[in-house]
């Protein structure tokens, strides 16, 4: 009996001891389309908000930075949950929830966040459509006023610098360029005209022979329809265009539909139509321009940091032999080599004036592009650019160690440009990898950043839901599938300030060494680019 009592006391003590450790809540992953996790979100606005709140709570990598601006994510929950519950209350909220109403609520929440890439898509459960939030773009537009739109709408070209209209000191001595949109438009334009002419010729030939008979009446009808379709497409080319890429975005699907629909007909009239390949249309570089300016200043401009897709051996293999994309690969490489080889030749001859890397209106891209840009001017073996941190655990403030991040530099033998100025041109629309490059140039003893403050979207991304578990961040949900989808930072970057102290510049960007806003009037009236001219003057002054 005594022994039994002792056991009971011992067991009770053990239970009491172990129950002194409260246990964690059970959490589900919102990373992918998990039926259980998204069940409530598919059925109520409050459930949708809870999924968004929790996914952000667990996956967003800069909560410590956000808290330094006073954001209290728990308070967001307490404040907004009743508002979303009110949307579900069909007794008091009898009208259908509009997209505008839903957008306004989510905008209030996300407007305070600083991630420079964040995109959020939320399904309106009443209309079945998605609203899209881009707080990073909204913030920059709000904080920088008209500068952002002015800079994006006035993307300068080098056209005038190849003519005697500019002073000799700014003249381009050599020039080379290519661009995917240009190639697409050229292909589209020439194909449509070619097919149209062939259709007219076929119709005329059949008409001259007394009209179609039972052997060719089906083909004749189809060719007539093809002629009408190509006539209508040719009219599009005469219409005014806002931007080339917007025009491509409209024309390409129309053209590809035409190619599919009339594949046989176009072959029958001897002018097969090749559709525009996805890889070409989705190219990240968009444009690459090289120029050698007076004073032996080598200039390179990229529309986007997609050189890796064209020059890295792993990516190069993906181009189908004989495709338009393959010939574009070659063109991009040719222009880049024009720039790189010019630098090599001039530097070896001790005759290089300087280098300009133009990152203006560049939305970023591959980190591996470093080796083809600034990395092509630095010693081989990589360069310790900045520091990285990843999310590491489900807690809002769970982070991994902060580790140095080494960017790749050009591996093959090359000239190291440490004795001549390197200038980077960047502006409000220079984002992500374009900003990393800007910082890299600025950090070199011979580097200088001219232009306006960059966008402030430094943290690297992981938009692929399949790769969610790499860091349990980068994205949550599946676009157009789960009721919420978020595109958020995967790696948080820390950069040193002038005192060598590392910090996050997300949502702010880098300040130029020489502030020089674009003179829109000079560009629009004379086709001249005062930022480029400032860079040329700076290099010549050194």
């Amino acid at each position, binding site marked *: 009996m005594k022994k039994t009592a002792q056991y009971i006391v011992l067991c009770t003590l053990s239970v009491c001891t172990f129950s002194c450790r409260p246990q964690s*809540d059970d*959490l*589900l992953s919102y990373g992918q389309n998990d039926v259980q996790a998204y069940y409530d979100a598919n059925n109520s606005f409050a459930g949708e908000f809870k999924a968004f709140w929790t996914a952000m*709570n667990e996956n967003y990598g800069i909560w410590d930075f956000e808290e330094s601006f006073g954001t209290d994510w728990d308070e967001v929950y307490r404040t907004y949950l009743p508002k979303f519950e009110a949307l579900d209350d069909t007794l008091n909220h009898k009208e259908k929830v509009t997209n505008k109403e839903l957008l306004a609520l989510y905008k209030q929440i996300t407007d305070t966040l600083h991630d420079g890439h964040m995109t959020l898509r939320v399904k309106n459960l009443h209309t079945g459509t998605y609203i899209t939030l881009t707080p990073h773009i909204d913030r920059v537009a709000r904080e920088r006023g008209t500068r952002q739109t002015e800079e994006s709408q006035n993307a300068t070209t080098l056209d005038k610098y190849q003519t005697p209209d500019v002073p000799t000191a700014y003249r381009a001595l050599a020039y080379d360029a290519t661009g995917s949109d240009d190639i697409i438009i050229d292909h589209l334009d020439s194909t449509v005209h070619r097919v149209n002419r062939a259709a007219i010729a076929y119709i005329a030939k059949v008409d001259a022979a007394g009209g179609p008979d039972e052997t060719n009446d089906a083909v004749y009808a189809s060719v007539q329809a093809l002629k009408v379709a190509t006539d209508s497409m040719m009219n599009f080319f005469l219409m005014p265009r806002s931007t080339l890429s917007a025009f491509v975005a409209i024309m390409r699907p129309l053209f590809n539909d035409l190619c599919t629909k009339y594949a046989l007909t176009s072959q029958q009239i001897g002018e097969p139509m090749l559709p525009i390949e996805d890889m070409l249309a989705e190219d990240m570089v968009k444009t690459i321009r090289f120029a050698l300016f007076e004073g032996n200043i080598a200039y390179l401009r990229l529309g986007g940091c997609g050189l890796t897709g064209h020059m890295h051996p792993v990516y190069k293999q993906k181009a189908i032999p004989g495709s338009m994309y393959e010939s574009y690969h070659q063109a991009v490489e040719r222009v880049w080599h024009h720039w790189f080889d010019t630098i090599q030749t001039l530097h070896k001859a001790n005759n290089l004036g300087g280098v300009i890397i133009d990152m203006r209106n560049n939305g970023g891209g591959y980190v591996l592009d470093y080796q083809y840009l600034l990395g092509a001017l630095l010693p081989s073996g990589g360069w310790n650019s900045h520091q990285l941190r990843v999310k590491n655990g489900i807690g809002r403030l769970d982070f*991994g160690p902060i580790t140095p991040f080494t960017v790749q530099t050009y591996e093959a033998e090359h000239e190291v440009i440490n004795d001549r100025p390197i200038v980077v041109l960047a502006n409000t629309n220079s984002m992500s990898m374009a900003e990393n490059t800007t910082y890299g140039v600025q950090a070199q003893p011979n580097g200088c950043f001219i232009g306006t403050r960059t966008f402030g979207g430094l943290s690297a991304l992981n938009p692929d839901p399949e790769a969610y*578990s790499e860091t349990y961040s980068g994205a949550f949900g599946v676009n157009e599938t789960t009721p919420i989808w978020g595109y958020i930072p995967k790696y948080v970057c820390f950069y040193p300030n002038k005192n060598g102290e590392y910090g996050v510049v997300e949502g702010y960007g880098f300040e130029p060494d020489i502030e020089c806003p674009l003179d829109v009037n000079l560009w629009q009236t004379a086709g001249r680019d005062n930022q480029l001219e400032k860079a040329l003057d700076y290099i010549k002054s050194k």
Partner: protein
Amino acid sequence: MKKLYLFVLAICAMMLIPGQAQAQWRIGASGGATHNWYSIAPHYQTDFHYGGAWGWSAAVFTQYNFFDWLGLRAEVEASERNYRFRRSGIYAGTNYIVHNTYVQVPVMAQFSFGGQKVRGFVHAGVYAGYWAAGKYKGTIYDPMNEKTSPVNEPYIFQSKKDQRADFGLAGGLGIEYRFLEHWAMHVEGRCYYSFISTTKQYMAVKDYRYNTTIGVNAGFAYIF
């Protein structure tokens, strides 16, 4: 925290007043190894693996014996409560030990038994501690550059998240050998069972993490 400092000071003062030492007093020092487990719910992060890791401990102690079988022991101890973090899958190169140094004060009753020279003992009590420092040491995989790099970085405390104060049960089982009239040596197995989560409950979502540490230590004591 202030109370903890005062307590530590009081214990140190007790050990530094030899004039008050009676025959039943003893002071000593010990050192050894610890092995810690970190209890954390990885939830859906199934490729996160938290394992035990070895560390060290060093302590000075004082003890007052009320009877030959019952004494009260207090220590000031610095010890590591480390754990290993490892990932499988694409991040498999990430494998590091999180080194956590605690300063703690266990206060335990000692029940002893046996002869004059060799005696066994059992410790039972509580401890209060403070998480003084942290460090990551090991390797980390970077999928962007597809390489594994060494990591040896300090753990950066976040006052909002990290619970640096600690409290829990302390217990041990050991054997003592009195090799001279005033000198004894011992070997002991020790366990610390924390009741305090290493993270504060700073989120609406509850998330608790605990340390459980066992250790082996050896030391000596001067008996007044």
